[in-house]
């Protein structure tokens, strides 16, 4: 039993082995959250539209949350749409049906997504590799069909509507969310806070523990880490940040489409993380930026945008297996190392 277990652990099927942050860039890592926020502040000036910039923020956070589990803990989940969608739906329903304050509703959505992550995580972390991916996918599909059937709550096929937030009152000030610039800053405030928190988590002993699990689960266990509990905690935290991004998307789009629970939304997280660089702090944001901008730009040029996008992805996989950001970091540290 023991030996069998070990062979499985040493080569988890389908799992990538992302690099630790290179040593030279370690100086950056202290400042990675503020630097990321500064970089994100420039987005609206660089991208063709505010709506797209907000999408990059939201999906960037979604991918960063996913990366916590995939890139740092080494668990390839294929069901993160469940957390994104749950965050969005619960936020929308809390505002639309119960008239909750948008901030409270977003909090509720995030908590609901974390609770779901606790359940899904508890069931799925017992399995590994492809089986883990399949279990998460199956459970996410359950959530999808539950939302489809409960149409009096969720609007079913037609999606959830009727909860448009135009103003958010914060004590004496009232934010006009319909103004694209205000909306961008509002979303950025949450994304920035989440990034700071994630940075802190990764710098903590727990962060080191999940990376140890990724590198060698058996050894981590032998070192005395509680592997199961660490995995579960990573899963819940990942679900929490994905839920928050879902809640933000509900505020942004003022609808929750059923597609937000569909498996291709789960796939988006995987693609964005891979394109940007799994196991890097800012990589998933770069991935979200590249994927969404290419989609946006290509689909304006040609109805065959999917072909162009597919080609670009293939090139990424062939020539930048560590992703854009991951490769950039690697190159940076290589050069510094030589000089």
């Amino acid at each position, binding site marked *: 039993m023991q030996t069998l277990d070990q062979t499985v652990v040493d080569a988890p099927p389908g799992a990538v082995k992302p690099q630790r942050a290179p040593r030279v860039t370690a100086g950056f890592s202290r400042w990675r959250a503020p630097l990321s926020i500064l970089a994100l502040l420039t987005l609206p000036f660089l991208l063709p539209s505010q*709506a797209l910039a907000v999408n990059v923020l939201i999906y960037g956070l979604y991918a960063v949350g996913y990366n916590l589990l995939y890139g740092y803990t080494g668990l390839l989940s294929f069901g993160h749409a469940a957390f994104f969608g749950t965050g969005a739906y619960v936020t929308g329903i809390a505002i639309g049906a119960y008239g909750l304050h948008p901030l409270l509703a977003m909090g509720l959505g995030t908590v609901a997504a974390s609770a779901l992550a606790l359940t899904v995580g508890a069931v799925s972390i017992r399995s590994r590799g492809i089986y883990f991916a399949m279990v998460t996918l199956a459970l996410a599909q359950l959530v999808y069909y539950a939302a489809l059937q409960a149409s009096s709550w969720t609007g079913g096929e037609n999606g959830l509507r009727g909860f448009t937030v135009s103003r958010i009152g914060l004590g004496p000030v009232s934010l006009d969310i*319909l103004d694209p610039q205000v909306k961008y800053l509002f979303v950025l405030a949450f994304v920035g806070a989440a990034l700071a928190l994630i940075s802190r988590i990764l710098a903590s002993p727990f962060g080191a523990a999940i990376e140890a699990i990724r590198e060698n689960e058996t050894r981590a266990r032998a070192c005395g880490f509680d592997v199961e509990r660490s995995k579960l905690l990573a899963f819940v935290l990942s679900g929490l940040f994905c839920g928050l991004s879902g809640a933000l998307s509900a505020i942004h*789009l003022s*609808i929750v489409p059923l*597609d937000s629970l569909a498996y291709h939304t789960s796939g988006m997280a995987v693609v964005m993380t891979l394109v940007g660089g799994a196991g890097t702090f800012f990589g998933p944001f770069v991935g979200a930026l590249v994927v969404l901008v290419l989609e946006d730009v290509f689909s304006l040029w040609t109805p065959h945008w999917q072909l162009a996008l597919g080609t670009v992805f293939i090139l990424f996989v062939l020539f930048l297996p560590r992703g854009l950001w991951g490769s950039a970091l690697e190159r940076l540290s290589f050069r510094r190392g030589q000089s």
Partner: protein
Amino acid sequence: MIEQGSRHGSVSRRTLVRGLAATGALAGIGMPFVARAAEPIRIGFPTPVTGPFGAEAKDQIRSAELAVKQFNETGGLNGRMAELLVRDDKLNPGEAATRTLELIEKDKAHFIVGALSSAVQLSVNEITRSRKVLYVSISQSDTINEAKDFSRYTFHEALNPHMTTAAVAKHTFKKGTRVAYLAADYAYGHEMLRGFKRAAAAIGAETAGEILHPFGAPDYSTFMPRLRSMRPDILCICNFGRDQANSIKQANDFGLKKAARIVVPVLLHNQRLAGGADAFEGVVGASNYYWRLEETVPSAKAFNDAFRAAYANAIPTDYGAYGYTAVRSLLMAVKAAGDTDTDKVIAALEGLTYDVAKGPERYRACDHQAIQSVLITESRKKSEMQGEADLFRILDVEAGSEAALRTCDELGHRA
């Protein structure tokens, strides 16, 4: 030699820089001035260019562009030209919402027209109504008429399931007819099924049974014997696109067409082309437009002729025609209002009666649903087709009337 070559290179680079600077200056100084002189009327047009309804979307774009072209050729609005901003919504409500936000915030679109699925149109509507932008939907839906999703900025130019099913039922159901239903298990199928059963109850037709099939099912062989055993006079198939073609083909294979008449809520040009003449032979359904309407309706003739002239003798299709009627009616209202101001155009659209392709139409006051004729068509036998595009025979044209719609009260609109 080398020196000459390098000098030549540097000179041309300098010229290039100068040229670029001049262009930049022109663009910076000249263009806004020109643009301000006659700001175009911008119509955002989200439509699923990619995805399973790509063919319909392409037809819609061509028809909508024709309407814009005609408007511009007749001088526009006192010299202000219209322009169509086509965006691919990828048949995805989230994408459509983002695109609509972009159209409103960045492109400063004055109006939004389009969408081709119930969910997508509702998401576009959610964005436009909160930003007080006029939206003309051209996707079949009952939901958008209801008070919950309606706003004064929402117009619905397409038919709705209630209208089409009532018209088809009126033409095919009789008192005591046994009807079996095969419906796709999602919003569209449910709305159609509900419409048919409601009409059947009013007429006195009996329900022999109903089966829901999963959306996108390729195989219907398990349903066919069950449907057959219900011994229906009419088999009513409520699904769309490839599902429709597949299920009708298989109903044929199981000999159901010999036992019962096959009826569908909407019989569409592109689906009939995909399914083939033999499979569809004798199938009855409704549609908003068929090009041979030109034999009886002058405006249809004018529309077809303009379309043929613009697109190498092609004929407009049913879903394509929506693009034309919606954009044309909107631009007529803009002309009548004399302005692109949303409130003025809403008032003009509410008061407008337009006949641009299929006889007179107007928007009902309470829910902004276009009151229009419904065509009942039957798919032709291959040997009876006069030419490639002669797919259907018009059995009847149900004239547009408010009686065909659900009442304002029922939809939840208070007077």
